[in-house]
């Protein structure tokens, strides 16, 4: 499999009147063709800003300070606005969290879908309409010939998200970025959308980046996972690595703080103490150092390098250093973080 997207040391900041908010502080990851990559993190971890940086949608006062975003070998950070417009919606497209605000309420679905198709592909109106209907059918909208004439408010939340997905896929993009696509939906509707994404992943040729705060959603669809915290990447690995052999204390802490549906006995949750860092004044060392149960002197001073653990897994934690003490750091067992 060849590399589709390579993000190298991405740093994106927002220059507000309060000072520089370092939303992404050096993120690097790669995405292969046809792969589904999950980026998981809490609010403020920099996962959405990473996606917006790839899309070239960082607006004033935000700025990509450093780093490269290589899409098929081309550095997108050097692209002009018009070059990016050619790419967006065509080669790379995005679905947002709130399907109500991301569709234009005063145009019909047909209007909005045909516009995208005709903007990027050299096809006539009738042809575009036909393709739009095909896409709506693909995402499971019943009676697409009729429904295409409706306005967004005539669809329910789940149906709107399907329309968004149809629209995003209409030009056959190579990369689809889904930013919390199911967060605004109820669980039963979320299950429908996740099933749809799993089904589409087989049928379309696009690589997908799925951004979410929910480890459960990640477990449903992703092959590879990036765990972000405080603007930095903490751990990367395959689904197996992250769920069954997490190496970073943050990933581990996240696992322990979620109630397990499977356990019969009622056990206490083990929370991560403290609160996420303020990215206006990010800590000098590891962003997780203030909340980590294994903090050492070095953690407070220097940001840890990224250690390779296996062919598929990396962890940005000083504990991986050969000089660090060995700690029991697995999902089961390990000491509490209270």
């Amino acid at each position, binding site marked *: 499999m060849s590399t589709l997207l390579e993000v190298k040391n991405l740093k994106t900041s927002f220059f507000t009147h309060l000072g520089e908010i370092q939303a992404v502080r050096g993120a690097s990851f790669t995405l292969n063709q046809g792969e589904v990559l999950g980026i998981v993190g809490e609010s403020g971890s920099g996962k959405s800003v990473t996606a917006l940086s790839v899309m070239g949608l960082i607006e004033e006062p935000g700025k990509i300070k450093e780093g490269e975003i290589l899409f098929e070998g081309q550095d997108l950070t050097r692209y002009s606005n018009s070059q990016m417009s050619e790419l967006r919606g065509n080669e790379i497209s995005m679905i947002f969290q709130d399907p109500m605000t991301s569709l234009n309420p005063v145009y019909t679905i047909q209007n909005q879908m045909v516009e995208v198709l005709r903007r990027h592909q050299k096809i006539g109106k009738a042809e575009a309409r036909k393709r739009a209907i095909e896409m709506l059918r693909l995402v499971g909208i019943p009676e697409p010939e009729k429904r295409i004439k409706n306005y967004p408010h005539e669809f329910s939340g789940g149906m709107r998200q399907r329309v968004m997905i149809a629209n995003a896929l209409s030009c056959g993009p190579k990369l689809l970025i889904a930013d919390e696509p199911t967060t605004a939906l109820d669980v*039963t509707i979320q299950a429908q959308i996740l*099933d749809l994404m799993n089904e589409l992943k087989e049928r379309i040729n696009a690589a997908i980046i799925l951004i979410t705060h929910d480890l459960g959603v990640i477990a449903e669809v992703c092959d590879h996972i990036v765990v972000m915290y405080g603007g930095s990447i903490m751990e990367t690995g395959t689904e197996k690595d992250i769920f069954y052999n997490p190496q970073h204390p943050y990933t581990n802490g*996240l696992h322990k703080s979620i109630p397990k549906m499977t356990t019969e006995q*009622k056990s206490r949750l083990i929370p*991560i103490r403290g609160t996420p860092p303020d990215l206006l004044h990010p800590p000098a060392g590891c962003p997780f150092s203030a909340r980590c149960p294994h903090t050492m002197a070095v953690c407070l001073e220097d940001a840890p390098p990224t250690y390779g653990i296996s062919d598929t897994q990396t962890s940005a934690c000083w504990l991986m250093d050969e000089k660090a003490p060995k700690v029991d750091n697995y999902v089961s067992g390990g000491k509490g973080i209270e």
Partner: protein
Amino acid sequence: MSLEAKELSSQSPLLEVKGLRKYFELRTGLLNSRKSYLKAVDGISFEIRKGETFGLVGESGCGKSTTGRTIIRLYEATGGEVMFDGVDLTTLPEKELRPYRKRIQMIFQDPYASLNPRMTVTDIIGEGIQIHNPSTAQARQEVIYDLLARVGLKREHANRYPHEFSGGQRQRIGIARALAVGPELVVCDEPISALDVSVQAQVVNMLEDLQDDMGLTYLFIAHDLSMVKHISDRIGVMYLGVLMEVCGSEELYSNPTHPYTKALLSAIPIPDPELTRKNKRVVLKGDVPSPIDPPVGCRFASRCPVATSICREETPELREMGSDHFAACHNI
């Protein structure tokens, strides 16, 4: 549930909701001439025993929050009874209700909207104390310090304003405010859904500790089933204004009987990929019908995989399925 609470729970329930209904009037048509009703809560009954946590789950729009708000009379009930300690709260005049306001308190979902930005933490927590248990300013301040310590905040936080706190800390202030007047029942309306995953567990553990220390009874309203299972002793599942199933939380997860409960449980994404692949999911078709003029018969019939003709004609009542296990379905 602590041992003591278990003994107490054999006694009469602290709160008994009987056939509670809450309709909102909508006016549509020319010059608002046509009246219709949004039936947010349409005849639900359950009881909460002293010292236990009763979880109320359901998807958005199912009426779970309206139920909570009607119980504490933020909304006036359209019909039915809310018996608290043997007294029907729905018909009490405001003056006679006041002592009960002290005994039932609420924690709200949004820690950003539920605290007055122009009041200090002391004022926010102290307001209720001043109204219900008037005392000297100094005595009140001591009580406030004690409450702050209980919810894991420091003395020096007392003179700050809400904007100086993070979401999790604000929720702690909201909890301290609810506890300030010494309530017996606390209605927790999605108290953790606005918080980050890593902070949610902190607040849930604190709620559990406070329950043990102060002998509280909780009505815990949430849409996150895994968290509800974790915190609740018994759970009620709501759908479109009615209760579908009520039983102990272990029982609900190990032996769900209602088709909606089954679908809801299987829809939860489990943070365990191998388990996810093994589980066969019941995916519900379609969307929740509108609560304005809801369907006749079982509310769930339009999406139910096992619905038969009777389901579209007759509304099923809650029936006993096992010990302390009730479900409203014709086809079980």
